[in-house]
């Protein structure tokens, strides 16, 4: 069976590299074909990589607090590029400790399928992704 390809990366001017390494490791272990764009990834790079590799999902991380400014428009960009991918985002999405439901709603409106609070276990993300991919198929 062919492995499902996912694109992962840390968006914007964000350089938090540790979580990204672990996500790569964990998704590889879980049997995905992981395309890791690393840190400081632009929206365009995410979209281009997904097209190029025929990815089924884009996993965006944002740790440093500018997530809202950086992610705005990514959902639309995917659509415009004709991409049919699952769009996940996690990390410390906004500046400061805040009510997660508000944050979740905001990011869902931007086109994200799933939004994760700070310190979420990547294993949970993998379980959700597996289920979502199955549902789509």
């Amino acid at each position, binding site marked *: 069976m062919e492995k499902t390809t996912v694109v992962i990366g840390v968006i914007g*001017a964000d350089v938090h590299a*540790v979580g990204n390494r672990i996500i790569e*490791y964990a998704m590889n272990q879980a049997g995905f074909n992981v395309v890791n764009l*690393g840190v*400081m990834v632009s929206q365009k790079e995410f979209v281009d990589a997904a097209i190029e590799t025929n990815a089924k999902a884009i996993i965006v991380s944002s740790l440093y607090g500018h997530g809202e*400014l950086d992610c705005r428009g990514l959902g639309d960009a995917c659509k415009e590029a004709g991409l049919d991918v699952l769009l996940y985002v996690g990390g410390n999405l906004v500046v*400061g*400790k805040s009510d997660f439901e508000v944050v979740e709603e905001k990011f869902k409106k931007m086109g994200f399928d799933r939004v994760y609070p700070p*310190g979420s276990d990547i294993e949970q993300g993998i379980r959700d992704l597996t289920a979502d991919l199955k549902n789509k198929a």
Partner: protein
Amino acid sequence: MNNGKIPTRAFLEMRKEVLNQWITGKEVVLDEAIAYQASIQAEKRFSARLAKAIVEKETLVQPRAGVALPAEHIKLLKHLQDEGTADLLPTTIDSYTRHNRYHEAQTGIDESVRTGKSLLNGFPAVNHGVSVCRNIVESLNVPLQVRHGTPDARLLAEITLAGGFTSFEGGGISYNIPYGKNNSLEKTITDWQYVDRLVGYYEEKGIRINREPFGPLTGTLVPPCISHSVAILESLLAAQQGCKCITVGYGQCGNQNQDIAAIRTLEKLTKEYLGRFGYRDVVVSTVFHQWMGGFPQDEAKAYAVIGWGAATAVLSGATKVIVKSPHEAFGVPTAEANANGLKTSKQLTVMLKDQIAVETPLLVAEMDIIEKETRSILEAVLKLGNNDFGLSALRGFEAGLIDVPFAPAQCNANKALPARDNNGAIRFLDFGNLPFDEDIKAFHRQKLQERADVERRDVSFQMVIDDIYAVSKGRLVGRPR
């Protein structure tokens, strides 16, 4: 890249270009800036406060803090000063400014004004300009430092020093490797030579500005010899440009013996290398960073980590401690949470002031190994660069003789891998190309094998992952579950 102090004329020529990078550069007039700095009283100068702390054997507390808009930023810092009893204050710069993306920073400012909420993760000092900075300095009673993570901080330095800040964090290595992806190390070192030269220029005019290489690097399981090597190279680079007041830093690892050994050797080795190259008049102080890796989400647990950091800082004899907040795992802290982190820390820095960590055989042994490792790296690196500090750093990173774990920078080898030993001290699991002799390597292997035996598993990458999560899950050593 320069080797030697940049000549005054050349430096003044370079400044013109730098000040043109954003419109606020126009506000900087060097003579006037020096006159302004001269008007700042001693109590509000970093160098004077640090010197006093050294004499009185105090460990000063300093937070991180910065928001988008000036009025809110002043309010925040006042709270940290008055309620948090901070001894030293920061101004943490936002990430767009750090990447010289002043247009995006402007968007962030505008949106913050519109929504009435800081949408930036720090204070965009370049966009706000000189007079706003002075406003901030004048609103407070304690010394102020710029803290950031900016690979090219030339304009930021020009504006904030003219703005009355008396200390500037960063360096060509420490603000490249952990803070960027594609930045050329040659360029960042050159750009920071400019910053150091600017500080040296102020020094020539009788204005002492404190310089602080960023000690913790990636904040994630960095063995002391790595951060020491970077700190010492940056100290040499700074001293070469005329800086006379340097604070070298280190991020807590969590094993108290290693942490105390680290601060003691950091001070000793920095002075030694500065002396060896003739910079004997540099005043060296130390900064201890409370745990820089992933924090527990629970605030009560976060307080534990904060308190333990403060206690170790004061027992190690560090000149100051950079403080975390109970919100660390979530996001930029509120003023209240930030003040709480300060108060927890201050209670301990003052309470434990009169206790000293004595030199035990265990401490001496740890100091010895750190010294040996650091010397191995520095000697190899300086040899490769013919004692040209910039070149040495450049070639050292290229060759992987210095290698920072978990760094995003492509100019970093990323081969060395750390893991904790059975007592929680950070050792090397993979040496990459680090220039260690067999004795040192055997020591590390033995230490990790001890742990492996206790945990009944092999030494492996899984240990590293477990260690990365450990503190946030209430442990130090990432034991198997």
